[in-house]
């Protein structure tokens, strides 16, 4: 066996970079969160103020609604993406001409930069230059104006996310479906099971690990969505699409309220990590344990 020193040396740069850019900022933000600090405000110095920032946070309606919006967004987006992605993956299991070609086209949105996705949807939905408000108006008489209608703006962010990320779900579920053995399906058919029974009792249990892993990854990303929404609605109208990432940005940069921004960052980071960890344990780790039997 070679000495482990060599192994540590190989890991060292990774640990160093992630330590400097992962741990130091975290300690620093934790430190700032216990201070009142607005360098461009009335008192530019950092003043220790205990847990005041955190106390303020509990009563900050804007912060709480931004959390609620983020959760609502993640819930609707991920649920629709999983359902739609599964249907599309099943459609890719059929034999038809040009399957590989269509799969390539379907994968395309994945590589588009979030900021470009936001721009595209803005171009499509801005009243008077976009095609969507125009068609909705002339076909259904519906007046889509995401600058005014909060519900429409929110729905649009979800639809945009579905366009952008469903392909990822389709691909992972397709990979899972392709890896399934054929025998259980044949057996179920011989036993006279109908389609719905096959789905619930054969397909679903077998691809559950893949579905759960996909939910985990998508949820993690949906909770941190900022760029697309920033470009599409800038958080508006009002604060209808101001997700938590945007809220932090607005506190830190235009308002330069560093102490309070740090407190929000700490809480959001804590909530995200706890949620990811719970999901990881509940969804992914349970599967690992099962596999060892």
């Amino acid at each position, binding site marked *: *066996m*070679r000495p482990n020193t060599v192994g*540590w040396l*190989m*890991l060292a740069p*990774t640990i160093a*970079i*992630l330590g400097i*850019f992962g741990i130091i*900022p*975290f300690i*620093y933000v934790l430190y*700032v969160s216990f201070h009142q600090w607005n360098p461009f405000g009335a008192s530019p110095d950092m003043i220790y103020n205990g847990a005041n920032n955190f106390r303020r946070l509990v009563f900050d309606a804007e912060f709480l609604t931004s959390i609620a919006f983020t959760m609502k967004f993640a819930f609707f987006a991920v649920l629709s993406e999983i359902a739609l992605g599964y249907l599309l993956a099943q*459609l890719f299991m*059929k*034999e*038809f*001409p040009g399957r590989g070609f*269509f*799969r*390539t086209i*379907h*994968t*395309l949105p994945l*590589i*588009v*930069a979030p*900021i*470009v*996705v936001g*721009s*595209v*949807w803005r*171009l*499509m939905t801005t009243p008077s*230059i*976009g*095609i969507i408000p125009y068609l909705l108006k002339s076909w259904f008489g519906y007046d889509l104006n995401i600058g005014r209608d909060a519900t429409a703006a929110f729905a649009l962010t979800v639809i945009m996310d579905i366009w952008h990320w469903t*392909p990822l779900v389709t691909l*992972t579920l397709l*990979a*899972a479906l392709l*890896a399934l053995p054929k025998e259980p399906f044949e057996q179920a058919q011989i036993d006279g099971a109908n389609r719905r029974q096959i789905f619930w009792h054969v397909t679903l249990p077998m691809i559950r690990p*893949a579905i759960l892993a*996909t939910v985990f*990854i998508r949820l993690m990303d949906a909770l*941190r969505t*900022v760029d697309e929404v*920033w470009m599409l609605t800038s958080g508006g109208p009002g604060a209808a699409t101001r997700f*938590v990432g945007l809220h932090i*940005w607005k506190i*830190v*940069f235009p308002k330069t309220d560093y102490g309070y*921004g*740090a407190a929000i*960052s700490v809480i*959001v980071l804590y909530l*995200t*990590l706890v949620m*990811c960890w719970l999901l990881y344990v509940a969804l992914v780790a349970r599967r690992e344990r099962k596999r060892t039997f």
Partner: protein
Amino acid sequence: MQSRNPLFYLALWLLLSLLTLFPIYWLFVISVKPAVDLFTTPSVILDTVYWKNYVNVIGNETLRGYMINSLIISTSNAFLVTGLAFLACYALSRFDLAGKENIFFWTITNRMAPAAVFLLPFYLLFTQVFTFGDWKLYDTKIGMILLYCTFNLPFAIWTLRPTIDGIPKELDEAATVDGASTWQVISEVIFPLARPGLAVTLILTWVFAWNEFLLAATLTSFNARTITTGLSEYVTTTGTEWGAMAAIAMITLIPALIIFAVVQRHIVAGLTFGAVKE
């Protein structure tokens, strides 16, 4: 299961592909329209093509600078990250290091944190802590290259680990018996075998770095500003220049599209996140 006519699926997928492609097509339509035509009745059909938006964007020295910055930053970052992840995965796979699974999980947690949470600490570190005299990490390419490691390095380690684990240990041992040094084992045995996995990692990390916006918008002002940030500048200033914005968005899309077309098949395989065991 009873199967429908293949032509039914073909028709269905044609329709779905139209839905997928339409937003990108619309981006192109807007990018080749003169400003005066934008506010006439929106039309799906493109009758005249007007390239002036592209000419203006490419002729704009500032935007050209942003594009070069983006190229430098994402390329250096992708190579750095892939190289470091290769070494790290090799160490995790072949050495009996204490607590290595915890280290592996810790690297991944770096990707879980929302980027917005780190805006403030990075901003403060870049402007006030990592400074030497007048020199600051803020608005430097090297700063952005290192910063992007925080989300790209965990991803790279995550995707590369199965590849390295999949290379039989016997090959290392055989080479060592023949007198090869650790370095020779890595460069002459492992590297050639891991090349497909390395290529996928390199490309995906490149795309992530190229596409990143939030951190670049916050931590650069001019010298290291990237093209995605340049794109956003066309919206936030009063009176959006829609045509120019669409042209920049199209240009931002092109390198990713080319790369994607080349490696499409491998990306599909690389995106299963270990959910599928062959």
